[in-house]
């Protein structure tokens, strides 16, 4: 997939830095302020306001799951790991915590901007995939309903193609999905009129 990363406007975005006070935090804050973000450092607790943050940077060296008010990997915003020790166990934890990007400590003069864009792109891609999977799963669940609706329409003497065609026409008339139309047909337990006028 080729993606075009716009130089999105990060001005005014909020970042929470979950890390004890440290020169690395100062260097990161300086970079974030220069880019135009509002940064807030905290440790070891995340404030309730974190739910409104646009980015979370978290310490991968001393962090643990119970610091986050959400399920591991289910953060509602992009997450960036601050990695000091590259021990495999810590990297694994950071990944499971939902790191969309990383910065290696000590943090100096650069790295924050690319981490922000990378994290946001990865987060958006993950969200889009999750939404698509959820939609596909729903359609999969409704497959049996579609088969039943088609069978009911065929019971009225239509061929299979005609039954599918009628279902499609109803879905269009009602402006709902094919699967939702099938659900209505089955729920009605009787063949509806093709005009479907009752739903306006």
């Amino acid at each position: 997939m080729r993606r075009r990363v716009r130089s999105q406007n990060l001005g005014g975005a909020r970042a929470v830095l979950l890390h004890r006070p440290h020169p690395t935090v100062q260097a990161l804050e300086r970079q974030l302020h220069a880019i135009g973000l509002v940064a807030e450092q905290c440790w070891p607790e995340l404030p309730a306001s974190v739910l409104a943050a646009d980015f979370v940077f978290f310490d991968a060296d001393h962090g643990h799951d119970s610091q986050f008010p959400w399920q591991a990997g289910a953060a509602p915003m992009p997450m960036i790991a601050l990695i000091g020790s590259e021990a495999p166990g810590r990297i694994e934890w950071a990944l499971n915590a939902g790191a969309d990007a990383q910065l290696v400590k000590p943090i100096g003069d650069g790295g924050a901007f690319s981490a922000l864009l990378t994290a946001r792109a990865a987060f958006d891609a993950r969200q889009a995939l999750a939404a698509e999977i959820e939609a596909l799963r729903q359609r999969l669940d409704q497959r049996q309903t579609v088969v039943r609706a088609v069978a009911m329409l065929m019971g009225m003497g239509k061929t299979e193609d005609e039954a599918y065609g009628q279902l499609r026409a109803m879905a269009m008339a009602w402006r709902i999905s094919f699967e939702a139309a099938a659900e209505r047909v089955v729920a009605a337990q009787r063949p509806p009129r093709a005009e479907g006028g009752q739903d306006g």
Partner: protein
Amino acid sequence: MKRRIDLGLLYSRSGSYSLISEACRMGVLTAVAEVNGDPALDISFAPVERDPGGNIDLYGPLCEEILRTSGARHVIGGVTSWSRKEVIPTLERARGTLWYVLPYEGFEASDHVVYTHACPNQHLLPLMSWTFAGFGRRGYLTGSNYIWGWEMNRLARELIADAGGEVLGERYLPIGSTDIRRMIEEIRATRPDFILNNLIGDTQYTFLQAYAELGREDAHFRPATCPVLSCNLTECELPAIGDAAEGLIAVGPYFRFAAGQPQPGRFGSSHEASAHAAVWMLARLLTGRPGAETLPISALLSEAAAAGIGVDARTHHTVLPALVGQVRGGRFEVIKDFGRIAGDPWLTRGRGLPVLSPKLRAVT
């Protein structure tokens, strides 16, 4: 008794962009002479100069040599963004500061660099606004093959798209290449409303000659209907362009003979003025404060004395006029003044263009 402070100077005096280097050197050396002769200041600057000769791989080592072999912690230099990025790791290690005095493509705010010329919200945004209103939104983008052209054209592409315009072509050439025929043929074929010129050095000079020739063949390709626009062209390169410069448009913080400016004619170009200003900003940060010359720039800028210097402590950028100029009779005349704009390297304040009402165009 003045404190003598070493000041690094890192410009290529030969190579593809030496005209710009010379303009910057002139600004630096003029300001150094002024500072050294000013009895009100307790400092004098001693230039420590190295010449990378246009070789990009020498900027890092020579900057390191200045910082290692002299007392200099401040270096003025670099023409291309590429060279600036080459020296930043060296500065970071030695806690030194680069004063970068040329326009650049933004999206940077190193803790070890002060940017005294314009970034895109001070050049490209006003220039595009002015162009869209007066000429149209169908552009052809050119550039030399390195970060300046790539990033400027990327941002221009976004601005054009946001304005509902169209990019008719985008083409790059290696630094130093003069093989501009294909560019000219594409422009002839697509007939854009404007050309954004991010070429540098000999490539640019050759291109401008060829485009002027195209304009003699076909009246569409003349400044009144399809101008060539630059964000980094100044008076210092006009001699290399000759008659083909007539009608070129550039945006910048200073034009030499433009009416209504402080000290008209004092500097040869905005590059020279920007280099001159950099030395004076540094002098004001250091004067009367023995030992300050060893401090990192972040420490210097965080002090109260830095408030009036004009460098933003958060981004290390400055406030500059944004003037659109056109070459008329061999010199730039200001044709639009956008006022003073604070540098906003990440476009934090948005990318909204100053709104100008469209100029009515004669329908023929």
